[in-house]
């Protein structure tokens, strides 16, 4: 048993953390939030130059050829830094989609561009406020033409290409992944307000836009698998964010005095932060299981990813809201940074589907396992 990152991976983490502390203090997320920018393009360029975008992409396709454990390491740091870049859209979703479902030609064409940062990719599934399952997919791909409307598409304005979940036939599960160039005709994109303006979201409308099936256009199970992979990776962003919230709260509790002593000496604060610590540790452990399942190609990924996501979502909500609470009045000011994390935590928890959806997935997977 070796249930930890390797020394090399830990060194990679330390380097990534140093880089982001220098290049991505919370002021960067704030700058995007308070401007019309879709993301921090300078930071994105630097991240691309470091090779992060191609971490899990084979060298043959322009990547670094490391594994998904390394990508988990970076995800945690991106999460700590609440980096205002399209990392999850382009890397965990668009790149992963190509890796698992793209044809050789598609991989050869797109992976190098995504890995180098020449292009930004994203993923579009939801069409309205409702469970984002196969039955809700109205968008359709017919004869190379994509039509439909997608909402809450992360980085939808900045992205160059999108992997779009679209109907491919009349059956309930006849849905698959379509690859569309967002710069082409028949694509309309409108920025959409969100609870986390340090990231950007868009409504995409396709009116017969040129698109192609990804690989053989396989059905809903590929979508599920893609979401599992992205969930396992995102769990590390959530864990990173949760830990920063705890660090911030702890730091404040040590330096803020009331009644003549640090507020961190009061049990109300101590036990609150102990609760946060417990949730964070459970989330981290569940995330490790996801990392192992993802990188080892285990059939347990579906179960592990659901567990990682549920645990990380719970931790991130708790840590981000109790960080505000610990900061008292300063905690809920605009100028304080606490709300950046509260916003990001909730956005990350919704982007791939809410915890309630993942709890149901988890139980189904446990039932299947028990039946097997």
């Amino acid at each position, binding site marked *: 048993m070796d249930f930890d990152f390797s020394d090399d991976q830990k060194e990679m983490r330390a380097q990534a953390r140093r880089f982001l502390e220098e290049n991505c203090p919370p002021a960067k997320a704030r700058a995007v939030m308070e401007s019309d920018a879709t993301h921090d393009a300078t930071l994105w360029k630097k991240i691309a130059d470091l090779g992060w975008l191609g971490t899990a992409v084979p060298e043959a396709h322009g990547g670094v050829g490391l594994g998904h454990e390394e990508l988990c390491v970076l995800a945690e740091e991106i999460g700590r830094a609440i980096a205002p870049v399209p990392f999850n859209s382009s890397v965990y979703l668009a790149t992963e989609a190509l890796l698992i479902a793209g044809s050789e030609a598609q991989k050869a064409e797109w992976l190098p561009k995504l890995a180098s940062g020449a292009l930004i990719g994203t993923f579009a599934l939801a069409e309205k*406020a409702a469970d984002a399952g196969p039955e809700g997919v109205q968008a359709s791909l017919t004869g190379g033409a994509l039509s439909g409307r997608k909402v809450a598409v992360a980085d939808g304005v900045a992205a160059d290409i999108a992997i779009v979940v679209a109907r491919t036939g009349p059956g309930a599960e006849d849905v698959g992944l379509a690859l569309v160039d967002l710069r082409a005709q028949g694509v309309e994109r409108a920025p959409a307000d969100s609870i986390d303006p340090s990231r950007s979201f868009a409504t995409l409308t396709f009116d017969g836009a040129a698109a192609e099936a990804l690989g053989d256009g396989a059905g809903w199970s590929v979508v599920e698998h893609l979401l599992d992979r992205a969930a396992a990776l995102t769990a590390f962003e959530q864990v990173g964010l949760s830990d920063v919230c705890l660090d911030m709260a702890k730091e404040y509790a040590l330096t803020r005095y009331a*009644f*003549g002593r640090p507020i961190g000496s009061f049990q*109300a604060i101590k036990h609150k932060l102990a609760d946060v610590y417990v949730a964070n540790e459970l989330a981290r452990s569940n995330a490790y299981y996801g990392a192992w399942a993802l990188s080892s190609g285990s059939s347990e990924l579906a179960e592990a990813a659901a567990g990682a996501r549920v645990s990380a979502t719970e931790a991130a909500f708790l840590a981000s809201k109790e960080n505000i609470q610990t900061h*008292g009045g300063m905690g*809920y000011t605009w100028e304080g940074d606490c709300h950046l994390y509260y916003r990001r935590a909730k956005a990350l928890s919704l982007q791939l589907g809410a915890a309630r959806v993942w709890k*149901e997935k988890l139980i189904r997977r446990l039932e299947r396992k028990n039946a097997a």
Partner: protein
Amino acid sequence: MDFEDSPEEAQFRQEVYAWLAENAPLKKEGPSSARDDDHGSPQAVAAAKAWQATKAARGFAQIPWPKEWGGPGGAPIQQVIYNQEEAKFDVPRMYFEIGLGMCVPTVLTYCDPAFAKPAAERALKGDEIWCQLFSEPAAGSDSAGVQTKAVRDGEDWVINGQKVWTSGAHFCDYGIILTRTDPDAPKHKGLTMFWIDMKDPAVECRPIKQMSGASHFNEVYLNDLRVKDSQRIGELNGGWGVAVTTLMFERLAVGGGDGGSGPGTEAMMALARETQLEEGPALQDRAVRERIAEWHVRAQGLKFTTFRTITALSKGQTPGPEASIGKLVSANTAQERSDFALDLQDMAGLLMGEEATHDGQFQDVFLAIPGLRIAGGTDEILKNVIAERVLGLPGDARVDKNVPFKDVPKGG
């Protein structure tokens, strides 16, 4: 046990409703927004003052204020009934509550009637608005930790320091301010209260932008503000006792008992009815149903607790600190509810504004609610209050008693 109005109460309720219907528009259908972006603008302040004047002229402002304060001298239960009815109408809110509820009664209790009575009259009919300047950057939960100094200079006092979390400071005319007048005395024993002119150039107000984007509060800087000793409220170094009185008046201000903040049961059920889950409308999902039931029971419990408080009021009893449970429960419930409402909307739950369901009102609440768990007493302070004042448990171990305030560790 009688749930209904007494005949007199029913009669009063009818009068109030009829008068309101003549003088104000009904609220629009659907839950109101958590945003109120126009709050505090000159037009909004003018409208609030006009509405206050209208209410006062009819005798519906500060109904229980005694005649000697220039009030209508009605029963507390009438105020409750008025609030319940007014809540159905679209009228300005959150301009006079603090001034008339806390500040002016304090001034009437402690100050020379020659000043207090005309000031109260002007405040009651909406000419002037009062605010309260207690909190400071280093005196929040620890409300006696005030560092703003008032130093004697001949007949006057000179005030320097910074206050924070003052509601509507920029449109207020007067404020009551807690200052430190003896840093050598223990914390609670060196404080003095004054009233001040908020329009004095030595008073500088800066808006605080909250995380929700709204600005309901101000920082207030006092730069050599000169006040007369006649502006002192209560004894020299007796300010803590005055502040306690002010906060006691706050407790007397009972709402209409609507069971909490944020989305209510109806809004949650409406959202669940409209939202399609994998297997049908969310309202058919047992997990959703259980949560809504749990929150409903809590909200009803709060509503009926308020009814019990109102009953005590109507029997002439003073409501105790039991009322502290209201904000504690409603803020936490609203946080859970809004979080859950976003989850119901799944991936699209992060949208705000036009693209969002119900105009993003659940998202607005989600962003406004962390402040509600803090403003007006954090969860933690409210639990202390319940534990100590209701249950009679001892205070925590103290390191800041019986030492000169200047020697109390302040960090930094």
